């Protein structure tokens, strides 16, 4: 099963290395990884997706919590979190094909980030599943190159029934 784990770390040199090393050392595989600033300048957020059984997830959470730079570890449960990813996709776009591609892009809310004589670059934001679908539809047109950020996530604001929507260790 795929799990999204959100980790708040001190914004210090080596913090990411310590987290990723823990995964490597204990034989856990990271599917995607996104790192960025938070509302606090001294805190960064690492969002990881891992595919593993529930017991292994528990072990991952506990091991991460032991890292001195790690402030909080939360697992974002499906349905209780907003998850987004951004992708840039360069696709073959001969003039005759452009209208079709733009219709497709419209359905996915993708923007044209750049346009050349034979290619164009789309920018699309959405759930990882939605990005996957967009990619599959573009592929037959000649997908040249793609970059994805890896997913980021936050607990939903609209789930008042759960006082702490994230599973927080300690």
């Amino acid at each position, binding site marked *: 099963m795929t799990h999204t784990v959100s980790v708040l*770390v001190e914004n210090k*040199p080596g913090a990411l290395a310590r987290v990723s090393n823990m995964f490597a050392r204990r034989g856990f595989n990271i599917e995607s990884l996104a790192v960025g600033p938070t509302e606090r300048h001294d805190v960064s957020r690492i969002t990881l997706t891992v595919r593993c059984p529930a017991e292994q997830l528990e072990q991952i959470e506990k091991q991460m919590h032991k890292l001195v730079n*790690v402030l909080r570890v939360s697992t974002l449960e499906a349905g209780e979190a907003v998850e987004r990813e951004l992708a840039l996709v360069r696709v073959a776009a001969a003039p005759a094909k452009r209208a079709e591609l733009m219709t497709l892009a419209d359905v996915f809310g993708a923007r044209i980030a750049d346009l050349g004589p034979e290619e164009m670059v789309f920018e699309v934001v959405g759930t990882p599943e939605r990005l996957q679908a967009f990619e599959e539809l573009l592929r037959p047109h000649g997908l040249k190159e793609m970059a994805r950020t890896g997913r980021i996530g936050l607990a939903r604001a609209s789930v008042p029934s759960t006082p702490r929507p994230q599973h927080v260790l300690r």
Partner: protein
Amino acid sequence: MLGSDAILRSLEAEGVDVVFGIPGGAILPLYDAFARGTTVRHVLARHEQGAGHMAEGYARATGRVGVAIATSGPGVTNLVTPIADAWMDSTPLVCITGQVRSSLIGTDAFQETDATGITLPIVKHSWLVQDVEELPHVLKAAFHVARSGRCGPVLVDVAKDVQEAEIEYAYPPRVDLPGWRPPAGVHPRQVREAAAAMLAASRPVLYVGGGAINGDACDELGELAETGGIPVITTLMAKGAFPDSHELCYGPPGMHGSKWANWGLNRADVIVAVGARFDDRVTGKLSAFAPGAKVIHFDVDAAEIGKLRHADIPVAGPLKLALAELTEELRRQAGPGHPGPVAWRQQLDEWREAFPYRYAADGDYLKPQAVLETLRDLTAARDDVVWTTGVGQHQMWAMQYLVCDRPRTFVTSGGLGTMGYGLPAAIGVKAARPDATVVCVDGDGCFQMTCQELATSVLEGLPIVVVIVNNGWLGMVRQWQEMFYDERFSQTHLTHQVPDYAQLAEAYGAAGFTVDSEDDLESVLEEALACGRTAVVDARCDPAEKVFPMIPAGAAATDVIEFPEEEAVQA
């Protein structure tokens, strides 16, 4: 003052009395500060690995944080083995290493290595200090992290220019580590459940690991065991956590543990794990381990609970507090006069009677077990003995035959299995506890890995006794080759004679002894123990002797290979 002086003032503020190290280019400013004066005694090792194991020995014998100092590059890479050893055995260690100047970091400068990078998987935390203002805070944090929660090693890598920089020194009164919060208490409901499960059990055992010693919980453990009348099984790392000579102590389980301890652990209906981690050397084949047992797991490190074996009742928290509360709860729930598991203890006693440690004294060679028995008997009247060991057959015989009735008296390399640990660890123990009788039981293979530290011992005036159980082979590897590789003894023969250990000892200024018969054994060991100098006893033993009982790697813990019955004489 200078950054280098600030390091020493910080060590003094932490109450450090002895450190172990070797100078070099990038740590020169710190050594200049030693020359300017400090209350900290510096023991000059001959190899950084030695310095690291000395600091570990110091830590294990005292419970205080050990400190090792090395230079950059090869200095710190030589420290990697002791750091890994301390990581595996949860030994509190602060390693202070020099780093090239800040301006040179990342340029592949002379003796530059990425110290924090190389040690990343084997430290609790590490710091590369490039700003002198951070130095006191980092050192304060380093000591705090090393000894709080589950103990372990940390590394402080200090750029040379930071050691030379001016600082207005003040040691911070407290640490600021928002992400480091080891558990301070235990959940009362889990303690209640644990006590209830223990009282409901008919075959309970306490399975005690090194965490009981690290967590300073041995008094509480004794109280708990006696209150419940519960058999205590102590792992290699827990030897001495509960008195070996106590009637409730059933000693070590595992690959070379006793049959009674392994059967006890595997046939228990409730296992109370205390600071133990279900290591493969204890459990054997994990899926076949103690199949019927309910597991109650006490550990200060929550990540150990459920890591290998599901815990029916997990209790994360400091063991000293947890065991005290558990005893209290046990008393409350049991009421007065609860007899404890009497029939179960009788069963264990019967097994102990039926399957003692055995070996055959066949006359041709001095038997290694006899060396251990003689050492045990010669020191039986002393209450000041601290043993250290290397790794291998001699270590297992030491575990089986020596008697340790106090915590911190059996100092060994468990998790990493570091050959060469024994001699430098003994130096660290003796430096920490000059009053103690310190005996290193070593193997000939192990001794040769760190024997240069004899110079350290002799020049520091440390009367430790090294007893080499010299079988002329890498004995444990030989045993595996004999049993599992059709007696193809590939690259394991070291010989009894090269080197001549007694002459080697004399060359270092130590006392050297050689013994190869049981007739002289007692007198030679007595003389070595009494000589008041660093002493090396070369006890030339049977090269073919194997350690029994043995659970082969990957086998179920109940499938014990016994000593061949027909040759057996009772040990």
